[in-house]
């Protein structure tokens, strides 16, 4: 058994692109855990998509042995955390498995929204936070200023910061020493009742679900009968071990250690992140560790196969994706315009985007994706409350007493010269200003309370363009508040296109309805007859647009040399047509559905 005094469990937290994976690689290399030439670049991000987007979606853990300056050999467990707001709960659980965190900040970019959020999460988890300033090899790096920003933002003394370049390796050795010196060893008694925190899980084709856990109290052995407290399921421990970084089986893991657990679990959904593993025997059972939640999908959209015959393939693809991501949900849904598809729920917008891209890329699916919406609540006249996740679930207006919508706390970090632009954007989106925090003289963090529905449209893009790319944001769900909502229906030549109808605040129904019609007008090709586009609330038409009938459609000149080219032109138009959906006698291209997704102020 490893002496717990020689164990250090830590995470690296950072804003996206601040170099988390590069630092992890460097640490693995310095501790000779992985040889440089064996290393795929950035070992911890193992999904193609993650690498491409520069974000880490699923956490992993890796053990390293480090011979420190004091002559002792330490066991380091690096627990990777997902780097995005949609996965905050998972980040919290990963942090809960640690005693310390390296707060990595890009020395040229400075403190960003996620830096603040992650640092606050680390503080909440009562971790020792070690500030590390990365990328000092860059010519425009300004480590001293950024250290001051860290101090202002997070009350971490500037002089504690270690300035490194994870890329070139400069000062990375100091990081290892700081981990030894500043991160406390785990506490916890191997003789207590077993409490192991599940901070991640993944599905392996051959071994079923692999649980990643931190033993907080007690001891777990191969062959033990264990149970998951929240899920209430009993298992036999088939294998436990460390991640070095490949799985290395052990017979026993003690309090303070981090490792994996395999116990013949067939479905990832049976395992809840944040759940506690304890012993099955009544007398040995320990209570759950604090803070378990079952995160609920907050953003919903419909996925429809472009080709209706692909419905079953889509179902299979979704099932396959769910094997490795139990945080998204799906159920069959029917749309008059789109046929058979699925209503899918996601933790957030990025999560939605990632799933959609995986479907298209890994599963080779051609999809129509409907406008995303948040979960609303309606209070019915009989006093009950109902969750509405899709405009089609909206009860009869006569039965609705009032509506409630989710409110998020949005934090935006931005250079001071862009404060005005951010204020305007946020208040235009019904944001309520709450406070300003100053980081140095040039950067501030603005906090707003905003309806979640206002940021799922294109808020992030608009924020970026309003601030020339400088603003970063993060958000967190705060609760539900009363709201004056309406369902806006979109009609194409009097046929309702349910896939395009949406719920929104009454004050923006006109504008949003009109914008959707304007987009549709440019995306729906002209027909041989006039096409009327209408937006309606209840029976009232709130916006109207017309697509003129084609007046003429025949090639003027068509001689020997023109035939191939002109025919190909017509065939190209036909290819676009393949992705069209017929609504009444109007053909709506997929692009029209997609364009509605990006409805903004343009």
């Amino acid at each position, binding site marked *: 058994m490893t002496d717990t005094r020689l164990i250090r469990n830590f995470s690296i937290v950072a804003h996206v692109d601040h170099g988390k994976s590069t630092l992890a690689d460097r640490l693995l290399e310095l501790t000779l855990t992985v040889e440089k030439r064996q290393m795929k670049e950035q070992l911890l991000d193992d999904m193609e998509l993650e690498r491409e987007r520069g974000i880490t979606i699923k956490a992993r853990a890796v053990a390293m042995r480090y011979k420190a300056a004091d002559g002792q050999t330490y066991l380091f467990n690096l627990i990777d955390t997902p780097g995005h707001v949609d996965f905050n709960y998972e980040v919290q659980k990963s942090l809960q498995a640690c005693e310390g965190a390296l707060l990595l900040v890009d020395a040229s970019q400075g403190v960003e929204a996620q830096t603040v959020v992650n640092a606050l999460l680390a503080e909440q988890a009562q971790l020792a936070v070690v500030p590390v300033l990365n990328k000092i090899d860059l010519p425009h790096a300004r480590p001293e200023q950024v250290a001051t920003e860290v101090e202002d933002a997070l009350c971490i003394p500037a002089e504690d910061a270690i300035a490194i370049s994870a890329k070139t390796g400069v000062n990375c050795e100091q990081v290892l020493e700081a981990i030894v010196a500043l991160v406390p060893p785990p506490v916890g008694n191997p003789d207590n009742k077993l409490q192991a925190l599940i901070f991640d899980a993944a599905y392996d084709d051959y071994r079923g679900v692999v649980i990643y856990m931190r033993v907080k109290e007690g001891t777990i052995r191969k062959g033990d009968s264990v149970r998951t407290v929240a899920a209430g399921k009993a298992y036999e421990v088939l294998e436990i071990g460390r991640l070095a970084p490949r799985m290395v089986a052990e017979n026993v893991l003690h309090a303070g250690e981090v490792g994996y657990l395999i116990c013949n679990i067939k479905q990832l959904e049976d395992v809840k992140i944040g759940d506690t593993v304890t012993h099955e025997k009544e007398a040995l059972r320990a209570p759950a560790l604090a803070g378990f939640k079952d995160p609920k999908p907050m953003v919903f959209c419909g996925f429809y196969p472009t080709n209706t015959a692909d419905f079953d393939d889509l179902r299979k693809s979704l099932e396959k994706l769910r094997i490795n991501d139990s945080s998204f949900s799906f159920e069959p849904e029917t749309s008059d315009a789109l046929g058979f598809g699925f209503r899918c729920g996601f933790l957030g917008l990025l999560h939605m985007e990632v799933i959609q891209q995986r479907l298209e890329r890994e599963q080779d699916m051609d999809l129509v994706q409907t406008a995303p919406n948040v979960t609303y609540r309606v209070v019915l006249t009989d006093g009950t409350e109902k969750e509405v996740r899709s405009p089609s679930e909206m009860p009869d207006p006569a039965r609705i007493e009032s509506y409630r919508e989710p409110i998020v706390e949005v934090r935006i970090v931005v250079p001071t010269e862009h404060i005005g632009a951010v204020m305007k954007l946020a208040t235009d989106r019904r944001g309520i200003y709450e406070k300003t925090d100053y980081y140095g003289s040039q950067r501030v963090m603005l906090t707003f309370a905003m309806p979640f529905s206002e940021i799922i449209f294109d808020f992030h893009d608009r924020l970026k363009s309003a601030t020339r790319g400088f603003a970063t944001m993060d958000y967190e769900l705060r609760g539900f508040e009363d709201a004056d909502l309406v369902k806006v229906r979109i009609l194409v030549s009097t046929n309702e296109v349910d896939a395009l109808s949406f719920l929104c605040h009454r004050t923006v129904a006109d504008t949003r309805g009109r914008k959707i019609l304007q987009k549709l007008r440019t995306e729906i090709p002209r027909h*041989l007859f006039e096409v009327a586009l209408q937006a309606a609330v209840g029976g009232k038409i709130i916006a109207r647009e017309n697509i*003129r009938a*084609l*007046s*003429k*459609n*025949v*090639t*003027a*000149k*068509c*001689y*020997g*040399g023109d*035939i*191939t080219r002109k*025919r190909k032109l*017509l*065939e190209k*138009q*036909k290819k676009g*047509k393949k992705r069209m959906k017929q609504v009444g006698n109007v053909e709506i291209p997929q692009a029209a559905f997609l364009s509605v997704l990006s409805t903004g102020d343009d």
Partner: protein
Amino acid sequence: MALPSLYVHVPFCVVKCGYCDFNSYVVDDAAVMDRFVRALDLELAAVAPPSVPPTVFVGGGTPTYLDAARFESFLAVLRTHVELDRVAEVTIEANPESLDRTKAQLAFDAGFRRASVGAQSFDAARLRFLDRAHDAAAVGRAVADLRAAGFENISLDLMFGLPGQTVAEWERDLETALALEPDHLSCYHLTFEPGTRLTRDHRQGRVAANDEDEDKRMFLRTRELLHARGFEAYEVSNFAGPGGPCRHNDHYWLQGDYIGVGPGASSHAGGWRGTNLKAVEAWAQAVERGLPPTGEAETLTRRQRAAEAVWLGVRRTAGVDLVAVARRLGVDPRAAFEGALRRVTAAGLALCTGDSLVLTEEGLPFGDAVGTAFLEDV
């Protein structure tokens, strides 16, 4: 087996018109033109067209852009490979700025009997807008020169749908053209072709497209007015007067075979369609080395050919003879494209009369919509 027709492309112009997407170059280098004529000789020798093809058409570019001496040697080259005197229809395109009495006579004496003159408009401002290198009066002079040389079948090319143009203005153009007593008229709706200067200007907002409803009225009015004056619309843009239809062009819409020579010229042989290299230099080099100068080629399946036959065929007023297509290609459009046929007839765009599919009065402006219904069903 019917013999292929012959098309000869002369890719030179005095100016590249803003609307034009044909393969033409502004070349002022005598050596290039000499090389063109020599290479043409070689290409004709290599492809060996029938000595008496059903029709011959010399187009461009501007065939008459060649100076008299080179024009003469160009005609001599043609005559060494084809017995122009025995061909039923021999057409040459001529532009007013470069045609003169001498060249008209040279062409007639070489065996040309039909001339197609690029008039486009009789309005000075419109001609300038189109980048034309001639004025309205030059069209009349060109026609007179051709008549004096002996041409009895003269066609004029005109354009409508120019930005700001009205039906009334277009009618004046038509009247001016008719006053020259042409034997055939081609009236083209101005098209914003990809890659042209005009399209670029349009996209960047410097040139507005004309009102579409007015364009449609011009399109329909053209047929009405010309009909009243003894010109029958036998195709979307073509009107037969005393000279009858252009048999060479009709051959294209009937999917006939043809041999095209010269830079960028297309050939068709039973579903194979090839296009020569477009640049004069590249084309000449290939020919000089004894290589086929084909740049791009495609081979259509019978089903594709049948769809294309309908698309091209409905352009003709007589419609497309579906039975003849079935016999020729072994694919009966009535069975193979049953759905498309039903759709276009149900929409009232086309009509089956006997063996033929014909555009209705309503469907006339929507020939491509009808054609596409078949093309997309391949």
